């Protein structure tokens, strides 16, 4: 059951200040409405994981680790590998996060990231089948939120795609006896796309990208639009208790498309590095 959350009270004076600034097109940290915070990406940070990446968006910090195992494919998709996305809002990351099983926020986060990867076909799941109907690679994408200062979706999705691009999986050979055997060789995960999510928050009548936590807490709604490398939209999620007019949605889509392009370059160059 989903329940209206108790949002942290933002000091009234701060809230008013943010609103006033926005009327002049400015934000509390001096950014333009359509500017991202500095993005830093580091890959290969966890040697035991098959792939990993940390992404910082300002003070928001996310670690994604990829584990690859083998298991049964789903019975309704016998010819494709399995991809699973899981997110943990660690109590490390903010005073409001409590330990426990995933709540609706971490489930939504994981599912929005999952949708971007899945619908863009970023990972070629058809190449991850070993024995059709019997054995497949199972890719676990675990999102670990280390510090929460807003816009967890973009930070998580970027860390996820960076980690996937960084992933090496053991080659498995099916012997003459039909038994699959792990070899010592490793190969990269088959990556086909690089979906980029752009999250836009609405405060009053203003739309602003990459909200910090203070902005998020004031925002009436957020929308995340994920764009594939050839410019298609592959996932959308409106979130929060407010609305977007259809005009605002059109504006948001155009902004998202523009920002996605910029960010993708950053990701690709860091992944290549």
């Amino acid at each position, binding site marked *: 059951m989903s*329940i209206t959350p108790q949002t942290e009270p933002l000091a009234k004076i701060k809230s008013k200040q943010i609103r006033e600034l926005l009327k002049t097109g400015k934000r509390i940290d001096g950014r333009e409405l359509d500017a991202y915070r500095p993005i830093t990406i580091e890959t290969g940070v966890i040697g035991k994981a098959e792939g990993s990446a940390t992404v910082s968006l300002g003070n928001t910090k996310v670690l994604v680790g990829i584990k690859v195992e083998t298991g049964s494919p789903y019975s309704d998709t016998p010819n494709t590998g399995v991809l699973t996305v899981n997110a943990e809002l660690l109590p490390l990351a903010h005073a409001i996060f409590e330990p426990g099983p995933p709540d609706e926020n971490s489930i939504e986060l994981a599912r929005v990231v999952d949708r971007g990867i899945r619908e863009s076909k970023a990972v070629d799941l058809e190449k991850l089948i070993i024995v059709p109907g019997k054995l497949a690679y199972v890719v676990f994408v675990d999102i670990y939120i280390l510090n929460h200062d807003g816009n967890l979706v973009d930070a998580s999705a970027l860390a996820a795609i960076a980690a996937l691009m960084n992933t090496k999986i053991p080659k498995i050979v099916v012997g003459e006896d039909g038994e699959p055997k792990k070899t010592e060789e490793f190969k990269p995960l088959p990556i086909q796309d690089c979906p980029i999510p752009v999250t836009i928050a609405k405060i009053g009548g203003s739309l602003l990208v990459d909200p910090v936590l203070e902005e998020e807490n004031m925002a009436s709604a957020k929308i995340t639009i994920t764009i594939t490398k050839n*410019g*298609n939209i*592959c996932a*959308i999620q409106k979130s929060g208790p*407010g*609305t*977007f007019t259809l005009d605002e949605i059109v504006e948001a889509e155009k902004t998202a498309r523009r920002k996605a392009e910029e960010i993708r370059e950053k990701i690709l160059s860091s992944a290549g590095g």
Partner: protein
Amino acid sequence: METVKRKLIDENGLRVDGRRPDELRPIKMKVGLLANADGSAYIEQGKSKIIVAVYGPREVHPKHIGLPDRAIIRCRYHMAPFSTTERKSPAPSRREIELSKIIREALEPVIFSEYYPRSMIDIFIEVLQSDGGTRCAGITAASLALADAGIPLKDLVAACAVGKVDGQLVVDLNDEEDKEGEADMPLAYIPAFNAASLLQMDGQLTEEEFFKALEMGKKACLKIYEMQKQALKERYLKIKESVEAGEENQEA
């Protein structure tokens, strides 16, 4: 294994169930059918069948989750174990947990929550049979149940998905179109605000398709909105009749 994919749009531009791209499935709405709930509604949209109950505004329990300035909304989207082709476990799935949140956020914008501080309003959506579009139909019916409960609303929320099948944009996808199609975009629309309170998408759409889909979605929602108003009117007429009948009885 080779699977020949069935065509989803035929040579006449008609869909698997014979509909035109912008044509809704047959829709039945009924308001006020559950005796205990403060408000209730039932919707059939194609083969999807959904029942919704609203309780409240009522006292919050436990008290500490109440809010000083407005009612909290609690919302559960739940599928019956027998609603799907394979039996669904009754425990809430990750999908149901996400949809419960998203649907709550789609309905909150029209509720005058501030009229009822420290109270709660419960919305229980049960999918009895699932054939695509259940989150949208659930929102459509939940709006009716809220109105039936006498909760003051800024407007009704009408919802409908738009999708892309065989390269063509269509509204109100059934299960087959949803699963075999190239994109699915559920939209909840509030006419009074010309705004979306739910918007999701999966699959792939070009920018041009997306803008067109938004327009088609809006039009589909407006048709549903008219049906909602009609369903409420019938409900009120029925109540009025029974009240008047009661008065006559009293007079007699």
